């Protein structure tokens, strides 16, 4: 007989599992990418310069409010970042990612935790995750500004043109739009909340919308990461061009 065990009676102890695969590998990219983006975005938000060049405006600073510090003495990014940050923090996909990677709650499936005072999303602060749909409304508003910026990036000193930065900003806003459209709350509000599509007012169009959003929603994780990386890259590109580290190449 091998070692004595009592599977159901054994109390939880952190990291205990019979899994033999490298379950901890799953959380490393999340810690690196999410932690790295968090650190980079924080530094950039406080930097307060190198956020625009020609027709390009960094997505971390859009919409640009009081850039000349008439009434706001700090970086303009600090005025707006709560919107996109709140949308991502309360996002159903990111919740899974950071609960696992940062709170280790659980670190992986069928891997033990040791916390005893678990309250999930029933108490402060995590009960605030329930306001995700309000951050969705804000995110849609931000998208309006970002689309305006992407279109503005086609105009160089009064003439229409295309630079690498134009494509970077356009790609970024497209990915952000897809990420927003794949949101679980939007899927619910668009039609998922209905019990009977054929009985409801505008049931047909709402069903079609819900179906399309459901297709996007199946890849919500992909859009979440792609759009996060594109925001970081777009900001980095504008910063490098703005500070003179690289030159923007005009394609047309």
């Amino acid at each position, binding site marked *: *007989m*091998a*070692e*004595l*065990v*009592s*599977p*159901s*009676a054994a109390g*939880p102890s952190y990291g205990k*599992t*019979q*899994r*033999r695969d490298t379950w901890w590998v799953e959380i490393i990219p999340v810690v690196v990418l999410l932690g790295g983006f968090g650190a980079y975005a924080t530094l950039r938000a406080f930097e307060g310069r190198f956020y625009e060049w020609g027709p390009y405006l960094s997505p971390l600073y859009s919409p640009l409010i009081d850039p000349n510090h008439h009434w706001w003495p700090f970086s303009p990014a600090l005025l707006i970042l709560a919107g996109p940050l709140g949308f991502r923090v309360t996002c*159903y996909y990111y*919740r*899974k990612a950071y*609960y*696992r990677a940062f709170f280790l*709650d*659980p670190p992986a*499936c*069928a891997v*033990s*935790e040791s*916390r*005893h005072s*678990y*309250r*999930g*999303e*029933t108490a402060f602060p*995590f*009960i605030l995750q*329930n*306001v*995700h*749909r309000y951050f969705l409304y804000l995110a849609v508003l931000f998208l309006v500004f970002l689309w305006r910026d992407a279109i503005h990036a086609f105009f160089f000193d009064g003439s229409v043109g295309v630079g690498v930065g134009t494509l970077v900003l356009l790609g970024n806003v497209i990915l952000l739009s897809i990420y927003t459209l794949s949101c*679980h*709350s939007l*899927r*619910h*509000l668009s039609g*998922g*909340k209905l*019990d*009977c*599509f*054929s*009985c409801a007012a505008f049931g047909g169009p709402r*069903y079609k919308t819900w179906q399309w959003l459901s297709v996007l*929603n*199946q890849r*919500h994780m992909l859009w979440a990461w792609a759009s996060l990386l594109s925001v970081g890259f777009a900001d980095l590109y504008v910063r490098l061009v703005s500070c003179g580290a690289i030159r923007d190449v005009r394609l047309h």
Partner: protein
Amino acid sequence: MAEAVLQIFRGDSKGGAAKECHVPLAPGMVVLDALHYVQAHQLPDLAVRWNCKAGKCGSCSAEVNGHPRLTCKTRMDALPLDKPITIFPMKSFPVIKDLVTDVSWNFRVNKKIPPFQPRAGAEWKFDQKDVDRVQEFRKCIECFLCQNVCHVLRDHGKKEEFGGPRFFVRVAGLEMHPMDGASRAALLRKELGIGLCNITKCCTEVCPEEIHITDNAIIPLKERVVDEFYDPLLMLVRKIRGAK
């Protein structure tokens, strides 16, 4: 002939130990076949719950190398054979004997859920598109692997406050049914404790029927609870309209 080494849990709720057994491998063999071989040749009193051996009855749930799985759907040739294969009972439920656990808690939770209640005066006619969603939930075979892997039950032991993914799937099937007239939002929030779920998707990962438990059942139900209890705009609209 190639053989596999199994470490099978032997014991009951008071405790037990892993017993090592050697099983000759055969083409197409699944873990349940290996357990049957052990029963037939080495441990005739080994307790294993099973019925269909076709992934449809949901009886043979266990933890194979630490992964909650149906033993009848886990092929031996998909497992690494360089180390012994551990086969343990589901951790979240009390062991009766060996690999058989007492899952009766689930049936008690089930009784809390108000059954299908037809909408008053509704015409019994609906489109396929109205029941597509619900049909996914009907695939559930009640293997309780999702309940077993859910950390709210497994690690935090919240059996008194939490219903678990299986029953969110059942409630979703009722709530989204076009002919059902009852609201179970308050039940979800209080008795079934849906707020305790932090949507880490382990239930979806282990579901042998590949039901999208988190995306298609739990999150839509969380959104319905938000509609009812956490959205101030909707609450205001309901107040203006004079709805309950």
